[in-house]
């Protein structure tokens, strides 16, 4: 579906995407995970054929974006990071008009609009103008709109950012259904849980480069331990405490507000900490996540 080799995007002197290699296969859900400014959106825009690569090669659906842009875009669905809904039109018209941009017949887009409004749970708001809709509704409309041409490949740039937890779960459910129906998904996100839930495979980006690649399971197995023990102490600086527990875990990360102890058995490590006579304010043993992988790879947290 997508094949990128040493794909590079520079804005003037600044390199936003630095020679990345990516292969996305038909039918899979592929994720770009990374902090602000990692180059996720820049990459998505190149894949969406709205931003010419500065260097490297890129083929989408077997075609070259430089020469076959319109033909490729005809088969893509795009959900940009910021909603670009047409505020001069109603909810329903947004889908109708967008479908017409793909050269689809009026009858076809009318039928499609009804189906997609249903899918996005916006049927009641069909004739409302776009402006007063809530953020979650706008996002759902943007996603519904992107499906009007029955895309083979759906590009979602931070599909759930800014949504409340319930709205996120509704969206995830919709995306699952699309994936089951054979649509290839490519998405970017800041959220580890989203990546773990939705992605078969993902790459972690940082500063325009790919720093790790694999399935969520593989990445955790490779770059982290099975469990993590979080310790919070009544102190501004957690570094001194790290020295006292460093031998109890495979690895210890010091965050501004807590210590992370990487271990295969969180409860056993917690018990060992207690035996040392240390008195943390709070102790939490949890399963390792992609956040830990990211922290290990870049020395920084993804969000917060």
């Amino acid at each position: 579906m997508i094949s990128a080799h040493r794909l590079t995007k520079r804005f003037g002197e600044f390199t936003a995407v630095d020679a990345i290699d990516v292969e996305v296969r038909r039918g899979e859900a592929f994720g770009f995970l990374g902090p602000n400014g990692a180059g996720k959106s820049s990459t998505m825009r190149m894949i969406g054929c709205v931003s010419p690569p500065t260097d490297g090669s890129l083929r989408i659906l077997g075609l070259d974006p430089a020469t076959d842009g319109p033909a490729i875009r005809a088969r893509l669905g795009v959900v940009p990071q910021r909603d670009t809904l047409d505020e001069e039109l109603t909810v329903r018209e947004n889908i109708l008009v967008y479908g017409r941009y793909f050269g689809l017949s009026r009858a076809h887009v009318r039928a499609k609009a009804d189906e997609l409004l249903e899918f996005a749970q916006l049927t009641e708001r069909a004739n409302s103008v776009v402006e007063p809709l809530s953020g979650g509704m706008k996002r759902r409309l943007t996603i519904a709109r992107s499906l009007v041409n029955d895309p083979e490949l759906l590009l979602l740039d931070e599909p759930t950012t800014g949504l409340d937890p319930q709205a996120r779960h509704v969206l995830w459910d919709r995306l699952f259904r699309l994936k089951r129906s054979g649509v290839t998904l490519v998405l970017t996100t800041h959220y580890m849980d989203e990546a773990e839930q939705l992605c078969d495979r993902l790459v972690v980006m940082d500063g325009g480069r790919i720093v790790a690649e694999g399935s969520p399971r593989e990445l955790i197995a490779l770059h982290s331990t099975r469990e993590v023990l979080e310790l919070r102490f009544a102190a501004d600086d957690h570094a001194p405490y790290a020295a006292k527990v460093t031998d109890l875990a495979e690895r210890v990360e010091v965050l501004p507000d807590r210590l992370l102890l990487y271990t295969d058995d969180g409860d056993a490590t917690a018990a060992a900490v207690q035996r040392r006579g240390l008195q943390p304010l709070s102790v939490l043993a949890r399963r390792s996540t992609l956040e830990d992988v990211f922290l290990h790879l870049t020395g920084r947290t993804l969000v917060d």
Partner: protein
Amino acid sequence: MSAVNAIARALPIPAGAGLARTLVERNARAFRHGWVTLVSGVFEPVFYLFSLGVGLGALIGDVDAGGGRMIEYAAYVAPAMMAAAAMNGAVFDSTFNLFFKLKYAKLYDSVLATPLGPRDVAVGEISWALLRGLLYSTTFLVVAAAAGVVHSWWALLALPAASLIGLAFAAIGMSVTTYLRSWQDFDYIQLALLPMFLFSATFYPLSTYDESVRWVVQVTPLYHGVAMMRDLMLGDVAWGILAHVAYLVVMGLAGLLFAARRIERLLLR
């Protein structure tokens, strides 16, 4: 609208999918929600015709339309008003409206994610400006004919002629708009339009000017629009009119290509 697509395909660069008509359709839909602007476009030239042509014309009396043929002043000035209205309408549509869509509504960010390319955007927006212009000029022609200031069947060709003026100015207006940074910059456009409106042999013949400055007037586009329009509406048609047509066609197509390039440059980074 197949003519639109033919134009879209005929131009070599930049990319497009020949779907410009769908953007026209989009504008027509959006327009239904805000048709008030139409009114000013229709009435502006009509007001000019009556205040300047009929009102002022009563003081002036008949004028020499060239070759010693005397006609009433309103008939002399009506073609110029039609040409100026075609210019103003096209410029308004392709500057204010385009600027809003480009900078605030971010309309083209979503449009360019579909098969449509920058060329479709340029062709679509200009076609839309022309369609609206056609409505204005048709109304004007009907009013002018009813007021008895149209003297020739050639005047029917004033409609396509108005579209041609619209094409030339919409294309340039669109190109200029891609350089504007804020609403204040629109004053520069007014600064260019007003003198053109006043001095393009609109209200009096070119021969009024001294020989040494005539060429200045003759290089401006509105002069050619007015001259073409006046020949048609006064039924004074000769081969020379083709020079005016050629000037405007070249300006329109060059402007269209340039506008498409600029949109590509701005949005497809």
